[in-house]
């Protein structure tokens, strides 16, 4: 597939009915409330709310599927967000080394994303797993290094345990490339942005950026959340232009590796 073919891909896939649009507003609001509860007030209550939201969304999706309604893909994709947060809060991470946390939480989410893309009939080109031209992808991937430094200066996290020394750094960076860079870009820019394109008359970039930002509220750092919102918006725009998530996935992987492994050890001491 050529770059021109990818760019010419008609993005408007789902025009949702009025009833589904109203439900979509409610689900997104409930996800935002659940995320805020987990971040600032009562994590258990937020998890219970997420469980209810997930049940309602997948049943609504099943009902739409029974009616052969084309909007069902929007709800199935939205269901990935409650799956992500419930998996991250219930996985027994305390028993694992810190660097394995990302793989432990990411694996179930990767399964869910794969199933959702299959059931929604999304192709590799739909979710941006194509490389139309490597130069712009390499250029955007390189932005991950300075973005990682900016993110570190804003958030100042400590280094992930077990990533000191070259083998630890390489293993940790690989883990973050797959389970943060690739997985988050696959879900937000690959699936949400594509499937939500045109929903409620708004571009997919709006939905992917908004939901991506909501899922970062748990960082409890307004400047960092704002930075990630800007990064999400820029990545979304780039994916819309090029039709590929390869470059932004690499950039996101570099950003996460810098933020959580390299910069804390180089600057933080």
């Amino acid at each position, binding site marked *: 597939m050529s770059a021109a073919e990818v760019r010419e891909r008609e993005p408007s896939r789902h025009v949702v009915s009025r009833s589904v649009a109203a439900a979509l507003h409610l689900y997104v609001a409930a996800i935002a409330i659940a995320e805020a509860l*987990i*971040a600032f007030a009562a*994590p*258990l209550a937020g*998890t*219970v709310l997420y*469980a209810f939201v*997930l*049940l309602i969304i*997948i*049943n609504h*999706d*099943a*009902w739409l*599927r*029974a009616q052969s309604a084309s909007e*069902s893909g929007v709800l*199935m994709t939205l*269901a*990935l967000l409650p*799956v*992500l947060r*419930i*998996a*991250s*809060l*219930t*996985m*027994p*991470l*305390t*028993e694992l080394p810190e660097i394995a*946390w*990302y793989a*432990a*939480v*990411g*694996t*179930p*989410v990767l*399964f*869910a994303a794969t*199933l*959702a893309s299959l*059931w929604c009939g999304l192709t590799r080109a739909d979710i941006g797993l194509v490389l139309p031209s490597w130069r712009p992808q390499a250029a955007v991937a390189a932005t991950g290094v300075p973005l990682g430094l900016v*993110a570190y200066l804003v958030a100042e*996290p400590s280094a992930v345990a077990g990533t000191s020394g070259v083998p630890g750094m390489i293993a940790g960076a690989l883990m*973050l490339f797959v*389970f*943060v860079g690739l*997985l*988050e870009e696959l879900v937000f820019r690959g699936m949400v942005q594509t499937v939500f394109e045109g929903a409620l008359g708004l571009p997919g970039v709006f939905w992917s950026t908004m939901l991506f930002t909501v*899922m*970062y509220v*748990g*960082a*409890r750092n307004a400047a*960092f959340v704002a930075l990630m919102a800007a990064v999400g918006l820029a990545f979304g725009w780039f994916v819309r232009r090029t039709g590929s998530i390869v470059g932004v996935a690499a950039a996101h992987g570099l950003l*996460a590796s810098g933020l*959580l492994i390299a910069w804390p050890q180089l600057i933080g001491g």
Partner: protein
Amino acid sequence: MTSLVSRSTESVFHSGTLESLSTTFGVVLVALVIVVLVEQRLMRAFSPSGRSSTARSLSVASVPMLLTVAAVFAARFAEFLK
């Protein structure tokens, strides 16, 4: 500091032991899995062909949640063996 593992999720893990977390957050997970699996069986049972495509929607939740439940049980079993 990612959407997968945020400061909120880290503070949840540091707030309790595996036992206390699996009897609070874990109960929510197990209840959710049971409801989804029962629903999935019912949908398949009442579909004419026995292979309801509507039940597919539920697998987006049931498969990852079953993996998570398996991890919780494995961790509890490992703790029991210690």
